[in-house]
Structures are given as C-alpha cells and as structure tokens.
C-alpha cells in the first residue's frame, strides 16, 4: 500500500466536483481543483518524484510548502518549460504537465544512480580534491551534465512580467494568525497597511482547517482597509525598508488558453514596496530527524502529512511510524488517526514527552530512534532502537515514516534586514534577538508557538507601529522541548542532512576534520544549505552537527548569512518589461521617414537607429557604401548627422573651463572660429573628441561624438560642480534639440546655394573650421564648415523638427548634382581614407594623446588640463606604446581584417598591435586601414605580418592620409562652382 486519497470531509481545500487531468512523466492522472501537484501525485500513489542532485538517489515529496528540498519537477513544455519547480507549490491545473528532474532515461530506472553506489568515493570536497589536475575545466562539462537538476526552456519566454512600486506605513509578510492580527490592529490604528501572503489562502498553518478566529480576522482586515495580496511571496527585504515580492498571476485555464493560442500571458508581477515598518510573520519550518536512509520516498515531515490529510484529503501512507523530537508529533499522530491512518509507532528521541501521553493507542518508544529503513524507492518498514541498554530493537511494517524534529522559525527576513539571532537551548531553535532595523517579527517566526500569545503580541505590535510607538519584543514560548542533535550514536548508513545537495552526517564530520569549521566554510565545502531551497530544512541540523563535531554550542557555530531571495524567483520577473526592444531602447532620427523613403538600410549605431547605407535594388550593403563614398568624392552627398553630440557652454568663465577640459586651447579661439579638441579622463586616456566653436565671447558650441555626449556632459558637470566650483559656467546638452544635415563633396556649396543658402556661407567667405549663423526661409541655422570626409563639408545644424524639411529641399535639387544620401558605412570609408580616427574604434582604454599624434599639442600647451599630470608618468613615455598608424595592404589587394593581430613571428607569439579600421577605398581601388602598433610613429615603410584566424597577410606602414595629403579638397580649394 502507499499514499492515497481520503474521502470527504478530509480535503477542505478540494473542490471534488471539479476533476482535473494532468500528466506526470507522460503518465495521465487526475486530481481535483484545489490540489497542488504534490497532493495530486500522492493521491495517485506516486511517491517517487525525482532523483537527487549528486547521488541520483530516489526522492519523493518531503514537505508541504516552500521548504521542500526534493519534490522538484520541470513544469510545462516548450517555451514555457520552467525548471526546478516545487511540486508542493504548484497549483494543479487542467492539462498541466510536469517531468522529473535529474534522471535518465526514467525516474524509476536512472543510469546516474550508479553515483549512489559509488557514493563512498564521493564525499564532500571530492571534486575539489580529485579534478584539480591538470585542470578542472577538462572535467567540468561531464560533471555538470551528471549533476544538476532541471532543464531550462531552449527558446524565449512568451510570457510578460511587470513591476509595480508602492509605499506603505506597514507591510506585513505572512497571512497567518499573527500576520493577520498585526495587520488588522495596524490598520485600525490608522496605518496604511499591506499584507503579503505567499499562498492562495489566508490562515498560514491554520489555513487548512476551518477556523473562526481566522475568518473573523480576515473580515476585520477588510473593514480596516488592509490591502491583502495573496499568491504574493515576499522574497527580500532590502535597504531602507524596501520589500520585494512576487505576485503570481494568470493561474489555471487563462494561462492554458493563452498558451494554446500561442501567446503569452502576464505571468508575474514584481512588487517593490517602500515600507515605513515591516512585520515578519513568516511562521516556522519543521526540522527533520536524522536517521539512516531518511531520504527515502515515503519519509516526510509530520506536519506536512497532517496538512495533506486535512487540507488535500491525502493519506501519505496507510501505516506510519513517527520519528519524534517534539511534542508536536503526538498531536499529528492523533490527527492522522482521526483521518483513518494507522499510526504504528511513535519513536521519541527524547527521554520523555512533556504532555500527557497516557492512553495513546499506538506503540510509543522513548530515548529511541530509527536505525534502519527498509525499501529503496518506497518505504516498506523500519527498525527502531532504544538507547536504554535493556531495550531491544523493534521492527515495524510501515509505508511512511514521519519526521517531527522540532521547529525552526523562518528568521530569513529578520536576518536579511540585519537582525541578530539567539539560540534557545530548550526548544533547540534560533529566534530573533530583538528587532531588526525597520522590521519586527511576530508569531512562530519570533519563536511564539502559543496561539493566544502569538495573536495578542502581534496585535500589540500592529497597534504600536500604527501609533508610532516602539513595538514590544517577542517572548518565545510554546515550542516545547527538543534536543539539538537527533543523531543516534553508532549509526552506519547515510543520514541525510541536506536532501537537495546530498550532504550526509559524515560530510559534516569530514568538513570538521579538515578544518572547514566556520559555518560559511561548511556551507561551501559540503554544499549544505545551497541550491533552490537554501537549506530551509537542513541548516539547523547542519550547524548543530558541526557544533557536536567541534565541541561548540550551536550559538557559537552561528548561521550563514541569509540573503535574498527567500525562494527562487524567475529572471523574467527581475527583468520585467526591460526585454527585447525595451532592453535598451534606441533613438530614432527626426527625419527617419525621409530615410525610409530613400531606401535606407537601418542599423544600430550606439544608442541610435540610423542608416548604414541606401542600397539601390540589387545592391548589397558593401556595394552601396562604395558607391556612396565615391559619389561624395566625385560630386556630393548628404548625411543625417543628427546623433552628433551637441553641447552649449555659456558663461564668463566658459573659455577657462574648456581649456581645463580639452587638450587644445579653446580660449584663444576668435569668435566664429572652431578647433578640433581631444578630451581625456584624469588618467590621461583619450575618451572623446570633437569640434569646439566659439559663438560669442561667453558662448561655445561643441560637437562631441554621437556615443560620447552623455559621458562628456556628465564629466563636464562633475568637474564644474565638484572641483571648479568657482567657475561661472552653464553646460546645456542640446543633441536632440538640433538636427544636423551634413553636405559633403566638391559640389556641396553649389547644392546648398541652389536651395537658397546666402553667399555668406560660400567657401570664399567662410573658411574651413568656422561657424556661422544665419537663416533659410526664417529657419535658424548654425553652419559649421568642418569635414569628417576630407571633402568640402558643411554641417548644417537646425532645429531638429526642420531636418526633414531641409532634406526635402536638398533632395528636390539632387539630380542636378548627382547627389546621393550616404550612410555610416560610406562615412567610415571616407574618414579612414583620410586617416581620421574614431575614438573607441581606433583607440582603446590605454590610448594617450601622444599615441594618436597629439604629443606636440600637449607640449605646446602651458596650462593644466584634465589628465595632464598622468601624461608625465613613466608609463606614458614608454617607447613601446601602441601608436596610431596608417596601414596599406602588402599586395595592394588583400584587405586587412579588423582586429587582426600584428606580429613578426607566427602565433602564438607576442603581439605588436592590431588593425582597428579597414575598408576598401573606392577612390584608390585598394584597401586602406588604420591600426595601433608598438613604436608605430617610427616604423614608416616597414612591412608587417598580420595574423587573422589562421591566415597571415602582409601590411605596410604608410603615411596618412591615403587621399589628398595637402588637404586641398577639404579646404574647399578644389570645389566646383
């Protein structure tokens, strides 16, 4: 016989009128609405649920709640498959499907179980000792396959998750008697109160019997305005009263229907609640007994068996033996008998019970423990021995063994909030030592197991918090007496301390002998308390044992730090809506529509979505970019440069400030003049570049790189607000305020003048690197003559909502000039041909201004500037530094791959540098490249070997630029018309 369904009235939560069918390991079964997967499996006689993490031991349902170490399944299939879900927490749904974890080919016949037979060879620290030579990574893949639990879905999650922020005076965690009492009295005292209950029902440990006091409190909570969130697990308490909780949504048929229709549902909601006060009312966990083979399917916590009988109408066995270390076992025995379960014996580890046990109808042994369990994938019987020398072993036939080792208050939130713990000798449990900062514990998690006392104390706490008074500290009571250690002397066989991680008593002993005595070392060395349950059933037993092995009290051993999350949460919950396109939202150009009409191929460049090129029908990206670059050299092109960073710097001290920021000297610029500037950080590293133009005595217009504008603005602000606080300067970022239409090519001016630009902008009146303001049809313009292409260039800045208008104006006259729109790819070709660098592409995190040709600019400048002192360090003057060079292909045809390493010898060898930018030049018909090369400045003409993915090509260090060395085109001296 085995576990089975009980008839009504047992099963308070069940709706027996609603039968649900589900699948477990491809076996079709049925349960009732109100069942959990665990209760439904037990009702179907399924006790073997999965295989353990390391030894592949058969495991079953061990508890009835969040603490369950072994009843893990993978839930769902395909995209919604969710690994390592607790069967005890899964609400049964029609069509639910679940499979066992960590077994192959099946849970009944699992090849990995050979590990169990070899277990003597696999003690704690086995991996550390055995697989360190020659290298752990050789063994890791195999071991990772053998160990482990469930499998994650291989495809994207179709479901949605959202985040909600809230504030409250009081947040109560736990919907049991104590939590409800605290919430009601807090709300009645005027506090805005939120109560979070992890399950679907209120009442906590009383939720599975009908209870008049709970019903009255729930009604009172409603009247008092307590906001109650059920199915909401508070998983973490963070700084300054922040409570994070997961609300589970989309239960049952809603989700099934949505999945069937191939779409996701709103699955979970993350609550971030900022609370003035937090009340922890999280209850307690039952502590398991330690005896050989205490992990067999059919061994279960006694309180869980009681709950299965009354709440879910499931008998965990027909004949049970109870292993006890607490008076609570006697109550469970009577309760189960009432449900028709035969209690064969109660084996009490203590010398006596503290309650009246006369007249029990079952065999009671004291000072005794279980010495042997019969059965492998289920329990067939057990043998109990007495510590009394006169006592004789007794063998019992049974199909379930219940473990009642005492209780462990759920002090997790108290500890997360920074609270201290103390050890109660009598009850053998850790309880909160006073209040934690911002958090008060009530009920069982405060060590109060007496019902009336718990309710009264919790109500006092709620009132005090609501009235702004100091709440009373709990006085633990009512837990009864338990022994700290339940291990019988002289036992052989595996006594599992941690079922999830296969840690046995001997492993703790080994850790003690090898001097891993600190509780934190014990955890890492043996893995006890790790995994998806974080030792909710194992921690106390493990540290009591460590105390025994090292002659210390549990209080001296202490506990490991409790960290959030209290229970596993999905990554989807934490990511919320910040996934897919919203993970890093891209910025769009104001004239995006115009580019679409021109057939632009859009790509992501930094945080912008902008045209890479404008391929004609049949053209590839590369072919289009070559054509566009050639058109700019031969006639004219237009580029939407709107993402270019734009800053305005105002104030009487603006010139002095910019001298401090840039390598170049900006204070000597005359009005209307512009200058290229390199920006360093305090380590002397080149972090940005751009053009600084002077609009008036106290007003500069600055173009930074598109990617660097936020960083540069922040740096300017930090220097102004934190260091140069005496300077009267205001920095205004205006990137999105101003659009930028860049017209470049020999016919640039002709094109602009055709659409009405006045003669003042003509190359003859306006020199390269000057800024001039004006207007076109009343639209204000700030026109900078500058060039990143090496051609006559106009950067026309105008209010961004007029960008589209100007592009249209130009486009109407484009055919006369064979003008083209050009994208980033063509721009990259053009600037590489000119040897113009792109910060972050042709520089890295070590590049100093001297490495990119600015040594003289630094030497010439007398004043201090950010990063200057760092340029005087010995490392900055190292002759072996990587320096920017122009590279040509050795045979003038083979391109040099970007990222390819330069080295004289063959790999593996020391690198001398690498290729940073490389393009085919449509003008030269040959590849052109830039690179960083050790001693690059003095190696002109040298032939280099460039290595890339197993091939080697030759390169030559040449003089930049590749095109128009005198700069005639750039200066507009060759412009047409």
């Amino acid at each position, binding site marked *: 016989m085995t576990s089975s369904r009980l008839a009504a009235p047992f099963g308070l939560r069940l709706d027996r009128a609603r039968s649900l069918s589900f699948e477990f390991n491809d076996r079709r079964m049925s349960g009732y609405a109100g069942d959990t997967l665990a209760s439904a499996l037990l009702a179907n006689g399924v006790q073997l649920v999965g295989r353990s993490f390391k030894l592949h031991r058969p495991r079953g349902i061990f508890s009835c709640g969040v603490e369950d170490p072994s009843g893990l399944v993978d839930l769902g299939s395909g995209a919604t498959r969710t690994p390592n879900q607790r069967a005890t927490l899964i609400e049964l749904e029609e069509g639910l499907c679940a499979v066992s974890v960590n077994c192959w080919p099946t849970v009944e016949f699992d090849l990995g179980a050979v590990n169990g037979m070899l277990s003597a060879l696999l003690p704690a620290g086995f991996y550390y000792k055995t697989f360190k030579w020659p290298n752990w990574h050789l063994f890791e893949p195999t071991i990772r396959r053998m160990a482990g639990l469930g499998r994650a879905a291989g495809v994207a999650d179709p479901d949605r998750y959202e985040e909600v922020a809230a504030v409250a005076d009081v947040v109560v965690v736990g919907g049991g008697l104590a939590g409800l009492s605290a919430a009601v009295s807090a709300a009645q005292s005027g506090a805005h109160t939120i109560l979070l209950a992890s399950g679907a029902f209120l009442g906590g440990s009383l939720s599975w019997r009908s209870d008049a006091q709970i019903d009255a409190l729930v009604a009172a909570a409603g009247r008092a305005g307590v906001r109650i969130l059920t199915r909401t697990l508070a998983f973490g308490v*963070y*700084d*300054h*009263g*922040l409570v994070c909780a997961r609300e589970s949504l989309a239960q049952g048929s809603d989700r099934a229907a949505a999945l069937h229709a191939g779409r996701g549902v709103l699955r979970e909601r993350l609550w*971030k609640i*900022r609370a003035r006060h937090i009340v922890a009312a999280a209850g307690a966990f039952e502590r398991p007994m330690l005896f050989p083979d205490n992990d067999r399917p059919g061994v279960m916590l006694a309180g869980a068996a009681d709950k299965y009988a009354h709440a879910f109408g499931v008998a965990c066995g027909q004949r049970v033996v109870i292993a006890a270390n607490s008076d609570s076992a006697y109550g469970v025995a009577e309760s189960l008998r009432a449900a028709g379960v035969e209690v064969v014996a109660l084996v009490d580890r203590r010398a006596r019970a503290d309650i009246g046990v006369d007249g029990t109808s079952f065999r009671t042994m004291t000072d005794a423990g279980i010495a042997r369990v019969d059965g492998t994938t289920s329990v067939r019987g057990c043998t109990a021995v007495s510590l009394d020398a006169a006592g004789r072993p007794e063998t019992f036939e049974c199909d379930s063994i219940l473990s009642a080792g005492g209780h462990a208050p759920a002090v997790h939130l108290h500890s997360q909030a*920074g609270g201290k713990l103390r050890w109660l000798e009598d009850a053998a449990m850790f309880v909160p030592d006073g209040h934690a*900062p911002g958090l008060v514990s009530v009920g069982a998690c405060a060590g109060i197991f007496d019902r009336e006392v718990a309710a009264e104390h919790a109500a006092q706490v709620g009132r005090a918090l609501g009235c702004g008074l100091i709440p009373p500290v709990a006085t633990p009571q009512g837990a009864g007496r338990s022994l700290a250690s339940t291990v019988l002397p002289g036992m052989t066989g595996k006594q599992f301390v941690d079922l999830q991680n296969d840690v046995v008593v001997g492993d703790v002993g080994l850790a003690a002998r090898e001097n891993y005595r600190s509780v934190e070392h014990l955890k890492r060395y043996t893995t006890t308390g790790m995994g998806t349950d974080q030792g909710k059933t194992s921690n106390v037993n493990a540290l009591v044992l460590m105390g025994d092995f090292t002659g210390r009290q549990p209080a001296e051993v202490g506990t490991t730090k409790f960290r959030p999350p209290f229970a596993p949460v999905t990554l989807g919950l934490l990511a919320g809506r910040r996934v897919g396109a919203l993970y890093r939202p891209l910025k769009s150009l104001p004239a995006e529509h115009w580019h679409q009409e021109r057939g632009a191929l859009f790509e992501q460049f930094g945080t912008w979505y902008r045209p890479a090129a404008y391929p004609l029908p049949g053209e590839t990206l590369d072919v289009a970019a070559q054509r566009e670059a050639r058109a700019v050299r031969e006639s004219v092109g237009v580029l939407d440069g709107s993402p270019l960073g734009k800053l305005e710097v105002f104030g009487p001290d603006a010139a002095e400030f910019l001298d401090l920021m840039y390598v170049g000297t900006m204070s000597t610029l005359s009005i209307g003049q512009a200058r290229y500037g390199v920006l360093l950080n*305090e*380590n002397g590293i080149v972090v940005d570049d751009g053009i600084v133009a002077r609009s008036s005595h106290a007003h500069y217009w600055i173009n930074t790189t598109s990617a660097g504008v936020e960083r540069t603005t*922040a740096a300017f*602000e*930090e220097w102004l*607000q*934190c*260091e140069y*606080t005496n300077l009267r300067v205001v920095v205004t970022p205006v990137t999105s305020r101003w659009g930028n239409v860049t017209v470049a090519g020999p016919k640039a001016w002709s094109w602009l003048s055709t659409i009405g630009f006045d003669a003042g902008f003509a190359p003859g009146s306006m020199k390269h690197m000057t800024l001039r303001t004006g207007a076109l049809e009343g639209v204000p313009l700030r026109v900078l003559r500058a060039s990143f292409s090496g051609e006559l260039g106009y950067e026309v800045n105008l209010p961004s909502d007029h960008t589209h208008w100007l592009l249209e104006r130009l486009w109407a006259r484009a055919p006369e000039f064979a003008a083209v729109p050009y994208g980033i790819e063509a721009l990259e070709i053009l600037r590489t041909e000119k040897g113009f660098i792109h910060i972050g592409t042709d520089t890295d995190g070590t590049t100093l201004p001297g490495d990119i040709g600015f040594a003289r600019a630094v030497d010439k400048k007398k004043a*201090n500037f950010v990063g*200057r*002192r*760092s340029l*005087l*360090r*010995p490392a900055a003057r190292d002759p072996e530094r990587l320096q920017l060079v122009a590279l040509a292909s050795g045979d003038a045809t083979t391109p040099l791959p970007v990222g390819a390493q330069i080295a004289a010898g063959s790999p593996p060898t020391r690198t001398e540098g690498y290729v940073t930018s490389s393009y085919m030049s449509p003008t030269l018909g040959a590849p052109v490249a830039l690179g960083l090369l050790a001693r690059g400045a003095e190696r002109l003409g040298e032939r280099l070997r460039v290595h890339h993915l197993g091939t080697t090509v030759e390169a030559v260090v040449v003089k930049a630029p590749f095109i128009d060395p005198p700069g005639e085109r750039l200066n507009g001296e060759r412009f047409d018309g």
Partner: protein
Amino acid sequence: MMRIPCINCGPRDENEFVCGGTSHIQRPALDASDETWGSYLFFRDNPKGVHLERWRHAQGCGRWFNLARNTATHEVLSVYAMTEAPPP
C-alpha cells in the same frame, strides 16, 4: 535599494542616482610627485562606518552633493552641498 535624500529634490530611490565615491579628495597640482598623483587617482579608504561620499541625482535634477553614510548599516547621516565642509 537605499533611499537617498537629494539635497535639491528630497528622498528618492537609489536607482535615480550615481555614486561618485569618496568626497573631499584634494586634486594635486601639476608638479605633484608620481606617488601623490597615483594615490589621488587610485587609492581610497574603505571604512566600515561613516563614509563621506558624493552622489549625483542623475535621473533627476543633476545636482552633485555630499552624503555621510554608515557603510555597515547604510544609515544616511546627513547630506550637504559640494562646497560645504563635512559635518563634525
């Protein structure tokens, strides 16, 4: 996530701010020794207890300000302007 009292806007969640690390660090002059410059760039105390640091309300008003915080408890003891001396 801490609550940071912006000197300009009042208490806001930590994720609206960036932390600029230790405050009141004197920037050495250009003729400082390599050692002095190196310790200015790279060496910081890591106290358990009160730490004077600077924060910027990056997702708000943009202001930098000083904040005295206990690194062990995350208690915020005071906030004061960049140009003010640390509290006694």
